[in-house]
Structures are given as C-alpha cells and as structure tokens.
C-alpha cells in the first residue's frame, strides 16, 4: 500500500496544514493540562529520537511475515 506520499506532495500537504491551522488556530481550543503534562515527556522524546521523522518511519520496510 502506498501510504506515504512523495516528498513534494508531503511538503505541499504540510503547507496546507499550516494554512489550515492558521485558520482554525483561534477556534480550536488546546487542552492546556494535557500539553503541560506531556511537555516534559515530549522534550525527552525529542532528545531520544535522533532521526528525522519521515526517514525513521519510511526506513522501516520488511518483507511480509506470517
């Protein structure tokens, strides 16, 4: 299954997402407690995961198993 777009589509998509977020930024409330509770953990994760997110995911290709 081709679940990942090629990079030009991906960056196009990212731009669209930014625009969408600017549009909805005010309207969508952010759960602040969830943000702060998870902030420390996410900071730690950023330091653990060295690799670029797309490479990390896309680089994981196997042959099928059972």
């Amino acid at each position, binding site marked *: 299954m081709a679940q990942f777009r090629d990079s030009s589509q991906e960056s196009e998509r990212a731009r669209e997402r930014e625009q969408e977020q600017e549009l909805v930024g005010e309207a969508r409330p952010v759960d602040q407690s*969830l943000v702060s509770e998870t*902030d420390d*953990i*996410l900071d730690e994760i950023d330091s653990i995961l060295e690799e670029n997110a797309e490479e990390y995911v896309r680089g*994981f*290709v196997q*042959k*099928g*198993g059972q």
Partner: protein
Amino acid sequence: MQRRIFGIETEFGIRFAPRGLGQLSPEEAARVLFRPVVAWGRSSNVFLNNGARLYLDVGSHPEYATAECASLTDLVRQDKAGERLFEDLAEQAEDHLALRGTEGRMHLFKNNVDSAGHSFGSHENYLLSRRAEFSRLVRFLVPFLVSRQLVVGAGRVHPAGCPTAEAMTLEGGSYSFSQRADYVWEAASAATTRSRPLINTRDEPHADASQYRRLHVIVGDSNMSETTLLARAGMTDVVLRMIEDRVRLPDLELKNPGMALRAISHDSSGRGAVELADGRSIGALDLQREFLASARAHLEKEGSPRPEMPYVMDLWERTLDAVESGDASGIDTEIDWAIKKKLLDGAIARGRTDFSDPKIAQLDLAYHDINQHRGLFYLLQRKGRARQWVQESEIRTATEQAPPTRAALRGGFVDAARRAGLDHTVDWVHLKVNQHPGLSHTCQDPFAAQDPAVEESIRQMLASAPSVPGSAMPPV
C-alpha cells in the same frame, strides 16, 4: 478445561539505521543480530534454557516463541523475556557493527506492520480439549476475536490516504484500535502469509492428539503493555472455557469477519454496526458486552483457579466503558491503544497538528521499539504512564528459567547437553542426544514439569560435564 497451556510467538520488525553510510537490508541486519545465536547453538533456530525458541522466520523476522506457560502471569514474564533477549542481541549487533566502522541503531519493533504495509504477527497458542468441536469453536470464537481489539488492540496511526480509513470516510490521518486488523481476511484457514485468517487451522497439538488440540490465533496485535497482554490471554481463556464447557452462547456469527475486523478497528466509537450471518446487525461494543456478560456469569457459577481473573474481568469492563464514554482516562496506563493515544494526543495538542503528521507516525512506531532506553513505551513506563504487572527481576529470571511445565524438562535437558558438550536435537515434544538413543525422550504431556526418565538423563549428562559452567543464553 480449567487448566490450559498458553504460548505466544512474536515476529519482530528489524531495521538498522546507520549514523552515516552503511545501510543494511533487513536480511543483513537479521544475520548480524543472530551471530551470537549461531555461535552458541550452531543454528539460527535454537531452544533456550528457559524452554523458549529463538529463530529467524519467514521474511527474516527475528522470532521468539515463549515456552509453554500454564499461568497468565508466566506468559507475561516469558513474553517480556523474549524482548529482553532480543534487546541484548541488538546491542551486541550495534557493538559488532560499530567496531567495523558502521555506527548506528539496531531497532527491533514489537509491532505488526511496516511503512510499506507488510504485516507480521503475534500468534497465540491455546491448548484445548479435543472434545471441543472445531466448527462450533470457530463459530463462537470468531465474533469475540473480531471485536476484542477494542480492549487489547495496540493502536495504529494511519497517514492520510489509508484505503481502509478512507473507505470508512475518515479523511486525513486517523487512529485505529488495531495494527493487524487491516491484514486479516477470513475466519479460519490453513493460510498464513496470503489471505490471512483469524484462526489458523493447522492442527499440531505438540501433545497427545487424542486429548488435545492447539488453537493457533493469528489475528492479534503484539502488545507492549503487560496488562494488555494479560487481558488478551485471560479474556480469550475464559471464552474458550465457555465453548469447551458447551455453555449456551448467543449466536453472533458474522457475515464477513474480515470486513467486520477492519470496520471495527477504524471506528473509535465502537458503535458502528457490523452484519451478522442471520441478517441482524450489531456494534462492536455490544458484541463485547455479550461476551463479557456470559463470561461473568460463567465465572460466578464455575469459579476460576486463576488469581489474575478478577483483574482481567475488571479491566475488560473498564475498557468497554472507556470506549463507550469516549473517556480513556480510566485505562490509559493499562491498555496499549490508550497508553499510546494519550501520548499522541499530547503531541498533537502541543504541535497543533494531526494524525497525518510524520512526527506522529514516528511516535507510533517508536512506542514499539523494544530498547528500554529509547523505546517510547519504556519511557512512559518509567514515568508511571504504563502499568507493570511483573517486576523487572522476574523478567530477567524468565530469560534463564523455564516456567513449571514441560518447558522445565526441555530447559534442563538443553542446559545439561550443552554442558556435557553433546550434540542434541530438541523440539516442543522431543529431546534427543544425537548418537545416544538412550538419552532420547518424547514428552507428550505439556503440563508435566517432572519426568523421572528425563531427569535421569539430565543427571547423567551433568555427571559427565566438565565443571566449567555452560553459557545459559546466547552470550550476552
């Protein structure tokens, strides 16, 4: 049957990520990973002192099959022991490669799908009474297996464009209960890699075939969470008991189990209707509520010898309540899909992004990295956001010690033969020292942890062994 043998076979995903140049294919990475195993056992398919089997499977997946476990908690210990053994091997592989100038990370993922949509499994084995009629078993078990993902699924992020999610009119990225559901197509058959069934019908009991059947369930997700794995095996155990005891169960045969599996996985409400064979339709939550109610009634009447059962039943009910109310706060340290989703929701809120973001897909995958320093499940466990069922010391012990079943005989035999320097051939039933027919045994009873003849052979081998201690495991 009150008593039962449980076992889990886990196929791990493998990827070597070099710091610089030096990409390895999964096959090459697996070969490096198994170097110490081959040096130890002269084969990439070995039985260990803890009774388990470690091998390279179809598609170069490193695989660990737990020893026969008679208790649910032993199953959790043995399953986690497999992770620790492969974690050690992966660290050795990184060292080996670094010494040769290729630094990088050897990732082993305990999940069920890669980025190209190849799936690999977590196969459950349940020993059943031969008296349970197979067609009846399939008829009643399949609706349970199709819907239990609400409780024991490992959760999966789908980037935008996932065909199954789009078929469910979910646009953009999404999150499903199950990793495996998109790759299983029919109720029961002998196929394993094409047109995968929920239940593999291959009948190899590895025991007295007149008494037992081994049920091979291949629809499950690999679990990181100890409590989710406990629930998966415990819930399935009690449903099997009802089928074996010929309890009157509601007839919930599904019209199309494969389609229902996917529809349920991608419907976070648990309410979407799936069709039954008799033309009615029912939601996944209601399906599970039926099984939960029958299981409760059966346990109240018949009792259970398993100390874990009250917890399993409670977690089962709480998880259905969480799906129904849309509030997972009561289970989000105990159930894989909810533990992971809490992390992802936090990342989405902070990054003001959504499930189609590659960063979110990365967190999903990294949750399943078995390395305790960089795997996100283990990070969450250290923060108290993933409940432990067993102590780390128990898991370490389980890497070397077999559970009190036939596995203990096998483990003792393997250890003694190695210490004595004798060539041996072992499988789930047979223990054989090549060229010494007198030291060969057939163990048909998987519950029997003792056998005087096997123990005598072990004594003889140990008596002839040099006093240097043998290495229990692939050298770590």
